[in-house]
């Protein structure tokens, strides 16, 4: 078994971690996931140790991807670890290309081996050596992005809940804005639209990394999703549920009028 594969071929969670395998399955099912490659935990470990052969192997796979890159950790660990390690393991957005990947992989390796990660593992009773796979994808540079729950995570109601903001989805995920809030019925009817207060947006920088920018005053409280885009998101929710089952937590982005699926995982808590 190769330690580096196209994302579409990632199928072994013990090698590549649950995020990589989940995205690989999404690609195999025809969902709109940005192209990428999956790196095993062992390869990430070798690259972090500056093993020249591993560095060259990864570069050969990654060079064909259009930069800049999104480099996301994919925990290779106990069942359900990806969800429980959310916030512990690093994701690096806008890595310029294959040449900068080694230091990005090193940072991600250390995020899984940091003091805070160890403290967390001790608290939840995990004493095994951390292993972290990585997903490297072409970075989507979105106009709008956010999260969608295919079932209301608070009330448990059978409806879609969408939270959206301008730019990269990190503004929503990290709670840096009050996002626009939408509720949709399963048939797509819009049940609620509440404009948020989106003062900042995360954007990619030309030389790598991201920057927090002020949003133009007229856009701060303007809804960032039109009804047609909500309908597309509802269709994506349908497809994700038909493939993975009910109650999904989806990260999505819209760039150049194309909707992308960035992550799809089970909702960790769904209503009463």
């Amino acid at each position, binding site marked *: 078994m190769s330690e580096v594969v196209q994302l579409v071929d990632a199928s072994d969670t013990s090698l590549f971690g649950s995020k990589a395998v989940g995205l690989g399955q999404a690609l195999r099912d025809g969902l709109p996931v940005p192209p990428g490659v999956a790196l095993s935990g062992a390869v990430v470990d070798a690259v*972090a*140790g*500056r*093993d*020249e052969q591993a560095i060259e192997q990864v570069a050969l796979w990654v060079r064909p991807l259009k930069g800049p890159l999104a480099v996301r950790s994919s925990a290779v660990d106990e069942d359900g670890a990806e969800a429980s390690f959310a916030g512990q393991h690093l994701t690096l957005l806008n890595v310029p290309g294959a040449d900068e990947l080694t*230091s990005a992989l*090193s*940072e991600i*390796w*250390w995020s899984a*081996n*940091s*003091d*805070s*990660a*160890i*403290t967390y593992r*001790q608290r939840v009773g995990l004493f095994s*050596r*951390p292993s972290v796979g990585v997903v490297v994808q072409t970075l989507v540079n979105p106009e709008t992005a956010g999260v969608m729950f295919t079932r209301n995570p608070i009330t448990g109601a059978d409806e879609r809940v969408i939270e959206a903001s301008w730019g990269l989805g990190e503004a929503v995920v990290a709670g840096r804005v009050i996002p626009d809030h939408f509720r949709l019925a399963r048939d797509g009817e819009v049940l609620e639209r509440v404009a948020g207060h989106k003062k900042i947006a995360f954007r990619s920088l030309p030389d790598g990394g991201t920057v927090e920018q002020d949003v133009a005053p007229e856009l701060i409280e303007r809804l960032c999703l039109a009804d047609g885009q909500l309908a597309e998101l509802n269709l994506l929710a349908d497809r994700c549920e038909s493939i993975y089952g009910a109650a999904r937590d989806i990260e999505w982005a819209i760039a150049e009028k194309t909707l992308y699926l960035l992550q799809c995982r089970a909702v960790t808590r769904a209503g009463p």
Partner: protein
Amino acid sequence: MSGVPVEVLKRVPLFADLNAQELERIARLFKERRFSAGETVIQQGSGAAAFFVIDSGEATVFVDGKERRVLKTGDSFGELALIDAGTRTATITAASELVCSGVTFWDFRPLVEENGVIGWKMMQALVTIFRAERGE
């Protein structure tokens, strides 16, 4: 490959009794880690995952919020983490761009488990440290 010079490891009290070959095996386990100026390297009270040697740059040590000393190239910190992954006893922040090499508890433990001689020498070093701290 990553690694740190054996001469640097020789200065670490925990490794004082190890020979060059044994130190070389430990040196190969290290991985580079970079910190930005101002970044917290380790936090007092946190669990401890790794032992670090400073490759370049400076770091400041704080205990209970009070500055205690400045660490420079070749200095090391956190070696007891390799044995018990216990609690950090100081906070260290990067005073400049800081490049360290670190080895984790998880990577160090198998080496000691496979090599009783290294383990025994480290036990002796620990006793020496313990006696010194008791003033014997």
